[in-house]
């Protein structure tokens, strides 16, 4: 009998073993699937087969491990933050420092995995979508490293808001295409990337940046990010002498959250995902798919979705561009419906308060996305302390660093004159 772990084709596709960590697509409960044009199905089938072969191939794994170690800087450290934790009911808070990865966020984990896969498949061009620019920068970085042509689609509104990340991608040799149709944000960048892919699928891979989209993307992107939780689980066991009580992460598409949740799915550990509550879920200006959306299909997968009564996608809102997306991973939708993970909204104001607090108490400037997770940690820490568990351990995924958000934060806290920001950005931009 062949060992199923060594024979990728023998592995079940729509079934799973007892561990929740290895659940295979295309469906996760009622969610997932492949709601895409027929023209893409052959490429998705090829990707599925090649991805399974690659992750079962020791040579591929060794090369990815080497890049993670020598290029990304893995393992990322675990930092205990006692001064911050004083504001979280006095529980112990540990940060998984994905912000210290090369390119400044967890995004590089998935990008390197997929880019190596692209080389293996013999394709020479990658396309990607980006909102704030983090995934675009990571993709442009991997494309430079592995000699791939790179085109990044970015909503025109986002190219204006994130001009420095546009410059960064161009310095790395990528072509950045501003998307002028629709709402001119991340959702429309994905639409345009899908249109490009349909037309150029022969030589092009769509390097999707999160755990959503058509099968096998959710499963594959989870695979490349699960290292976050694997490392963090060992690090917490080593430092705290036990598993954490709660693991906390922000959820846009959901890649950093799934990356850290996955290793804990079979443990008796609470998993808490924080969505962007924007101005507040009751205002309608938010990105809270679980508390403000309903199941539907967008960008290839069935999941929770912000939509109107006609099934038209509703615009999302958040101070954080990386969480500003109207749908969410089908794997999170499944974890939500099964109750294995819980999801709560965090408003812009709550996230920015947590942002300020981490800066002042620990000397770490987080990405505003990650600040949503920090806000969740403050709340859940106080709840735990109030219920008598003041020795609780809370693990937070600090998914990215805040350099890209300095202008937004400076404006929010009114610490710099508006004109000075504009001038500084222009000067910095031209000197690049």
């Amino acid at each position, binding site marked *: 009998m062949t060992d199923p772990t060594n024979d990728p084709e023998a592995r079940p596709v729509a079934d799973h073993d007892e561990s929740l960590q290895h659940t295979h697509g295309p469906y996760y409960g009622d969610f997932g699937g492949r709601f895409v*044009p027929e023209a893409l199905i052959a490429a998705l089938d090829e990707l599925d087969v090649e991805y399974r072969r690659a992750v079962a191939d020791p040579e591929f794994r060794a090369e990815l491990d080497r890049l993670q170690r020598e290029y990304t800087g893995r393992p990322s450290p675990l930092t205990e933050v006692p001064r911050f934790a004083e504001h979280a009911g006095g529980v112990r808070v540990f940060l998984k420092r994905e912000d210290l990865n090369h390119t400044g966020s967890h995004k590089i984990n998935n990008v390197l995995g997929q880019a190596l896969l692209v080389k293996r498949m013999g394709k020479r061009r990658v396309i990607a979508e980006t909102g704030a620019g983090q995934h675009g920068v990571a993709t442009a970085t991997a494309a430079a490293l592995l000699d791939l042509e790179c085109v990044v689609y970015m909503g025109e509104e986002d190219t204006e808001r994130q001009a420095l990340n546009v410059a960064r991608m161009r310095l790395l040799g990528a072509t950045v295409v501003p998307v002028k149709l629709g709402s001119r944000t991340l959702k429309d960048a994905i639409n345009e990337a899908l249109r490009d892919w349909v037309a150029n*699928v022969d030589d092009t891979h769509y390097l999707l940046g999160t755990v959503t989209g058509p099968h096998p993307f959710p499963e594959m992107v989870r695979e490349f990010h699960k290292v976050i939780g694997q490392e963090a689980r060992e690090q917490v066991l080593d430092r705290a002498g036990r598993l954490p009580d709660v693991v906390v992460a922000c959820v846009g598409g959901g890649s950093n959250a799934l990356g850290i949740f996955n290793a804990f799915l079979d443990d008796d550990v609470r998993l808490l995902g924080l969505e962007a509550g924007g101005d507040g879920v009751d205002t309608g200006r938010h990105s809270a798919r679980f508390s403000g959306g309903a199941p539907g299909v967008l960008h290839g997968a069935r999941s929770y979705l912000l939509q109107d009564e006609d099934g038209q996608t509703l615009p999302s809102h958040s101070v954080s561009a990386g969480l500003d997306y109207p749908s969410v991973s089908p794997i999170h939708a499944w974890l939500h419906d099964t109750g294995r993970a819980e999801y709560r909204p965090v408003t812009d104001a709550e996230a920015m308060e947590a942002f300020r607090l981490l800066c002042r108490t620990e000397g770490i400037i987080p990405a505003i996305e990650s600040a949503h997770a920090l806000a969740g940690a403050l709340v859940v820490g106080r709840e735990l302390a109030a219920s008598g568990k003041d020795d609780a351990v809370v693990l937070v995924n600090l998914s990215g660093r805040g350099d890209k958000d300095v202008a937004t934060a400076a404006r929010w806290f009114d610490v710099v004159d508006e004109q000075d920001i504009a001038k500084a950005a222009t000067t910095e931009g031209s000197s690049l």
Partner: protein
Amino acid sequence: MSGATGTTRTADTGFTAGRTGARLAELRAEGRGALVGYLPVGYPTVERSIEAARTMVEAGADVIEIGVPYTDPVMDGPTVQRAVEAALEGGTRVRDVFRLVSAVADLGVPALVMTYWNPVLRYGPDAFARDLAQAGGAGLITPDLIPDEADAWLAASDAHDLDRVFLVAPSSTPERLAATSAASRGFVYAASTMGVTGERTTLGGGAERLVAATRDAGAEHVCVGLGISTGAQAAEVGRFADGVIVGSALVRTLLDDAPFAQQLEALSGLTAQLADGVRSARSGA
């Protein structure tokens, strides 16, 4: 309404011809393919999209494909995107499609609705099928729904006796061509090239090969869309396909700043040119 006859099934392949299929069979007997013309409902307004559809029928369109405006049309190029965006901004609702369907059906022409899946999912696939059948619609064309994901739609279209037009592409494997042909009713929509909707100067030989392969895989009727914009192209495709599907080129006649009457004239002229192309395709010329 000779087009709206019942369902016929070809026993050996499992492929079934619904109401659109019956019309295509009639036209085949006449020695020509069909001109399938696309317009989104609600552009420039619901009333005017009804007038535009009527104009296309009068100028020679054999089947009308009515688009449901959607916020995220990933299979559409800039021309159709601009029109559906304007339709949505103008307040077009999904249910408005049934008014246009009804107007087209009254003219004795099969009315197929082209829609992305989420609006139907939200409406409820069975409720949508019921209301579409009640309006006299022939069925649905579903650009982002493959048969593998279509259980709810297969059941609803059976229950309400509607066509279901799935797409095949140059990248489709023989296995998928067979499965898609078996699941389709009315015709199979062959995408002429890899890409989204929009006008193209050359079509290449891929479309003819794809039509042949789809027929070999069991499809009774195969219509070709994507990129066709001129009478000459319609004639070229009409030679080997059961139908020639034109969208962006027709929509473009309504996108400029000219008065609506003038736009209708342009729409009528282009439709007639395309209809001539389809009619001349197999005349031995």
